[in-house]
């Protein structure tokens, strides 16, 4: 299976959200990283065919997805960043409704709904109204509905938002087990979520792909540019303003270890360390936005 975007562009007025994007996705887990406004959500909506591109096209195995209609949507599972629900529906009702929308038959519906409720840990509360759910429970329900039809293409927009650490681990395991022979695309700000499960990282900025590759390889880009240095804790503020700090950790004797991204040693006691994905993210998105 090959999902391909060809010169894909989406503009909102004069603002370009996705800019002549060419990308080929085959089976595997893709982690989409980028600051707010980088075009991740727009790209996902375009892939889901719920937004029409301004120009360019998306093909699945060489066929335009717009022409595939139900056939394409039948392969799709989508968790939007923000999704609505029917306040009077229980979790079970909601999944039964989504199963009907996805065209699952009676028998499969029964099995799949039960399976997904268990997978996301909502079996116990399946008869509770969704309006009584916490943010994390709603998010898990969203994940369950996306996976209900055993999708061959699973698109998850910020799937771990609102999940506690235990739930995030459960989610990662769920995706890892699920991803065989499938295309899974997930976007997130939480770098560690994709670091463990994504086979390929795609970094987006201003609607374009900045960088892509395997997590282990992609970080080589900044080899020799990540340092750890110990500074007095009361001086941390002045270093924070002056340097690109990816992490700080207090240690004994009123000292703090700073993880700094810089071309050369930021101070004399700086020790070079191996870069990780978070360092790379900060290297590209220092300002925390899409500038």
């Amino acid at each position, binding site marked *: 299976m090959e999902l391909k975007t060809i010169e894909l562009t989406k503009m909102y007025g004069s603002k370009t959200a996705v800019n002549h994007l060419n990308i080929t996705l085959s089976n595997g887990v893709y982690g989409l990283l980028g600051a707010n406004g980088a075009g991740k959500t727009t790209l996902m*909506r375009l892939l*889901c*065919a*719920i*937004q*029409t591109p301004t120009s360019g096209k998306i093909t699945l195995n060489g066929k335009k997805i717009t022409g595939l*209609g*139900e056939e394409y*949507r*039948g392969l*799709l*599972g*989508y968790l*939007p960043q*923000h*999704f*609505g*629900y*029917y306040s*009077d529906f229980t979790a079970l009702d909601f999944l*039964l*409704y*989504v199963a*009907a*929308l*996805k*065209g699952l038959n009676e028998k499969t519906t029964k099995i799949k709904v039960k399976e997904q409720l268990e997978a996301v840990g909502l079996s116990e509360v399946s008869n509770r109204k969704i309006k009584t759910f916490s943010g994390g429970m709603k998010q898990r329900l969203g994940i369950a*509905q996306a996976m209900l*039809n055993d999708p061959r293409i699973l698109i998850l927009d910020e799937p771990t938002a609102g999940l506690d650490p235990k739930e995030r681990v459960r989610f990662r395991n769920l995706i890892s087990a699920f991803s065989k022979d499938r295309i899974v695309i997930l976007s997130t700000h939480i770098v560690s979520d994709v670091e463990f499960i994504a086979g390929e990282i795609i970094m987006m900025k201003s609607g374009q792909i900045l960088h892509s590759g395997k997590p282990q390889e992609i970080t080589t880009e900044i080899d020799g540019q990540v340092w750890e240095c110990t500074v007095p804790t009361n001086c941390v503020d002045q270093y924070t303003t002056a340097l690109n700090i990816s992490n700080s950790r207090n240690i004994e004797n009123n000292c703090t270890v700073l993880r700094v991204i810089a071309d050369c040693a930021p101070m004399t006691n700086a020790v070079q360390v191996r870069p990780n994905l978070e360092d790379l993210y900060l290297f590209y998105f220092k300002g925390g936005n899409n500038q």
Partner: protein
Amino acid sequence: MRKLIKFELRKILTKRLMLIAIAAVILLSILLGVSISQSMYAFDGTSNEGTGQTAISIDKSIVAKYKGVLTDEKVQQMMADFKPKSDLHGMNAVYLYQNAMQSAVFARFSDINGDWNGLSVADVFENEKIKVGYVNGWLCTSQNMAKVSIVLSLVIILMIAPVFSGEYDGVDNIILTSKYGKTKCGTAKVMASLLATLLVTAFVVITNIMIAFMIYGGDGLDCSILFGPLAFTEGYIPFNITCGTLLKYQVLLAFTSAASVTGITLILSAACKNQMVAYVASVAIYLLPIMMPIAETDLLFKLIVLMPFYHSQYISIMSVEQMGNGMLYAVWAIPVAIILITFGFAVSCRVFAKHQVS
């Protein structure tokens, strides 16, 4: 598809606001039915006088004396029986109200003093055979039903406005990416909307008819609406139909109004991003015809009365000249309703399928 329709129907009918609105229409039907019967007055010209159920009994006993086809003899008899016994102090006797039958005969055959105005039955009704009976109850019921039908249309708009636009709050993401989200889901929504509309309309219509039967009984259904009290002369339906026929047409118009309103609202529901905007726009379109000052003689009037508001209001559409086959012009409400619901189905499904999630 059946499963989807069931879910859509559930979404439409189980909202608390909807249940309250339907209960309010039923309550309005009961209040109107009871209050109009309670405000009825009748005096038989001798000793019996009363309001409410007593008035209805007096009216029915008076009517019993003149039952059958209206003749000049019966008119003379009525004029003599109801001749004012006291000084009217300059009041035009036509406007005198003692009971329903007196009001009916005075409205057509009395001069200002309460004497016969010299007109014969043939002068007033030409060759029509006017069957006399207790029609007051059913005529009042039909007026109540018009009011209820207008309120019901607003409730139906409230019910249908969120069908598509309600999904734009975020569920559209999930629906439109599912296999049947852009195809069967739209159809299911339209089918469920129409079904919900027909169910609610049937419930309200049956309630109104039951209330009328309980208060007035079945008398008068086979009698002409043309020999009703003064309130049903000027500007009322000018055709010699029975109360039963009037009731049938009104039931039909209640359904065509509801279906037409559903068609219009579905389009706006799919086109508007917000359910409140869809509601306000649909209400505006529904009420628009009454804002248009078009004379009944204008050709355009024949088109305007085909708008759903006039289905509910019933008098205007039923007053347009009869068609060649003797049917009332009001039957055109059926094709109008079919066209609007078909158009609503096609457009709303297409707009929803092409909706750009934001």
